[in-house]
């Protein structure tokens, strides 16, 4: 039996350029959501969680030429560089794989005023992965998970399975998306964007707040690569489909329940009280949050403390599952529950236990879930 551990991690978001900095800001209740009137993103003012690109470009300029890489490629490279710095894995070994997760990749290259140095071929997600692979001189062909809002969790699940079946010893899983007019206009056309910073699980929630970022986890079966005394292990994971609607979640929550149940069975968790907390998807759309409350009810998890991190980072799309997993892992390591920013008055049918304030709790195991367009769901269990 092979166990899969998280050897190192990084988050680049509106709240900082390392996991520690991001976690510290969450702990202090600081949200990265701001009001922007950048006309390149939206014709009307918009709340969003945006990366400080001046800092990114300055950092990236020290290691490579900004003009030769897209914004997304820059944060992938910086995030992976920081994560690799914390481990001793030799990336050139043929037992290491790169797995990216993204929803729209370099979609901004469609815009004619894009970077003239960059070939439009890099609109292909595999090409983006190829660029990152070449930068790090990895020896295996990389792959990309592009599965809407569950992309990040699906990538972690796939990576963990590839390690368990001994295809690779290490997998670098990196998820990222940058905000573009393409993405924002689409969510606006759905009337899914909140006019205020999002309010997950709240009675007054009005939709999502979008965000951009990148999260990286280095997964390994090699325990000698682990430096932290709190060894974080992936206990199990599952994915599912609602088989209900391409752009709306299930009304019953059964799809998400199947993903959670699959993860619980793999982890052989019979006493649900072993789960210290749940990091939900919590996009703050009316239907999503309602569906999640129902899935948690079916799974018998309504008494377990639950948070949504969307009030800190916004919905970071292909990065969300990874960024939110990393924050969850830091909650485990530090025995701290991070609250749901924006949540004030309970607004979903089932009486789930939404975390409203930072608190201390002795933690061993947590559940991370996600759901998205196409009726997709994913769930992963982490423990220390």
């Amino acid at each position, binding site marked *: 039996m092979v166990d899969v551990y998280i050897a190192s991690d990084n988050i680049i978001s509106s709240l900082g350029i390392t996991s520690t900095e991001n976690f510290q800001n969450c702990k202090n209740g600081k949200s990265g959501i701001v009001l922007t009137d950048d006309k390149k993103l939206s014709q009307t003012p918009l709340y969003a969680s945006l990366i400080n690109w001046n800092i990114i470009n300055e950092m990236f300029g020290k290691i490579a030429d900004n003009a030769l890489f897209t914004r997304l490629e820059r944060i992938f490279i910086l995030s992976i560089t920081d994560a690799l710095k914390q481990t001793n894995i030799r990336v050139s070994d043929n037992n290491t794989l790169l797995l990216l997760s993204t929803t729209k990749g370099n979609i901004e290259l469609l815009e*004619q005023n894009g970077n003239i140095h960059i070939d*439009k071929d890099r609109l292909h997600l*595999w090409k983006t992965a190829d660029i990152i692979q070449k930068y790090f001189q990895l020896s295996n*062909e990389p792959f990309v998970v592009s599965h809407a809002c569950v992309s990040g969790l699906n990538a972690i699940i796939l990576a963990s399975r590839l390690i*368990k079946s001994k295809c690779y010893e290490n997998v670098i899983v990196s998820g990222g998306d940058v905000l573009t007019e393409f993405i924002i206009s689409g*969510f606006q056309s759905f009337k899914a964007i909140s006019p205020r910073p999002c309010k997950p699980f709240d009675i007054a929630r009005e939709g999502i707040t979008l965000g951009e970022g990148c999260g990286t986890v280095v997964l390994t079966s090699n325990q000698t690569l682990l430096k932290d005394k709190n060894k974080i292990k992936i206990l199990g994971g599952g994915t599912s489909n609602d*088989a209900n609607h391409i752009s709306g979640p299930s009304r019953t929550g059964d799809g998400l329940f*199947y993903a959670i149940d699959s993860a619980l069975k*793999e982890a052989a968790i019979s006493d649900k009280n072993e789960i210290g907390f749940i990091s939900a998807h919590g996009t703050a759309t009316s239907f999503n949050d309602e569906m999640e409350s129902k899935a948690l009810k079916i799974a018998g998890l309504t008494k377990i403390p639950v948070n949504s991190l969307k009030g800190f980072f916004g919905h970071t799309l292909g990065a969300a599952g990874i960024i939110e997993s990393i924050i969850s892992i830091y909650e485990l390591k530090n025995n701290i529950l991070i609250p749901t920013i924006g949540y004030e008055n309970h607004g979903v049918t089932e009486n789930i236990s939404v975390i409203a304030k930072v608190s201390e709790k002795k933690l061993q195991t947590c559940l991370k879930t996600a759901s998205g367009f196409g009726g*997709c769901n994913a769930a992963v269990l982490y423990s220390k």
Partner: protein
Amino acid sequence: MMIENNFISNYCLIRNNSVFLNGETLYTFENPLNYNDFIKTAFKSQQITYPKFYKMDNLCKLGFLTNELLLKNSNIREYEKNEIAVIILNSSSSLDTDMNYYETIKDKSNYYPNPSLFVYTLPNIMLGEICIRNGFKGENMLLISQKFNPVLLTTTVNDLLNNNKSKCCIAGWVEYKRNWEKTFSQNPFYDSFLCFIEKKDKTGKMKIEFNIENINNLYNNKA
């Protein structure tokens, strides 16, 4: 872990104005049709009543029809809905629809973004369409690789079946690529190959083991 053998009980290929099911040519159109006419003609010939088909984008139509044919004479109804996995790989993601959607937002004086188009800018919507049609609630994964990748495909599917995450799996490659040089060319490249894979050979009829060599042969239509 004991390595178990999994079997391909049905497979379907759609490419180049032709449809092949389990190695037999189901039909081939001599006169080259454009993709739209071809896929609609092939769909109509199956006498399937499913109006949603016409609302799908090019990629989803391709994956959906391949799956319809694949499962036509299969024993998939014997499985529980949450035991059925769908794993699809492709190279060009949803770029065809991405370009169509971009046309709706690039001109600010003619700005008409539409949610029913935007939703198809995600390649996994194809899995959603297949799952909605059939009620499948099991494992789902949409992966991108440059080319048809039998190693990734067999590894991912065998792992699901051998660890009892799923009892059976629809898996393969569904690629729809617009001609890049001429943005609105009538000659896209389409290439779809789906297999129905079961943990054991229930009927005793299908003898094709689900492995890299067999997958390669079937994909290349050499079986």
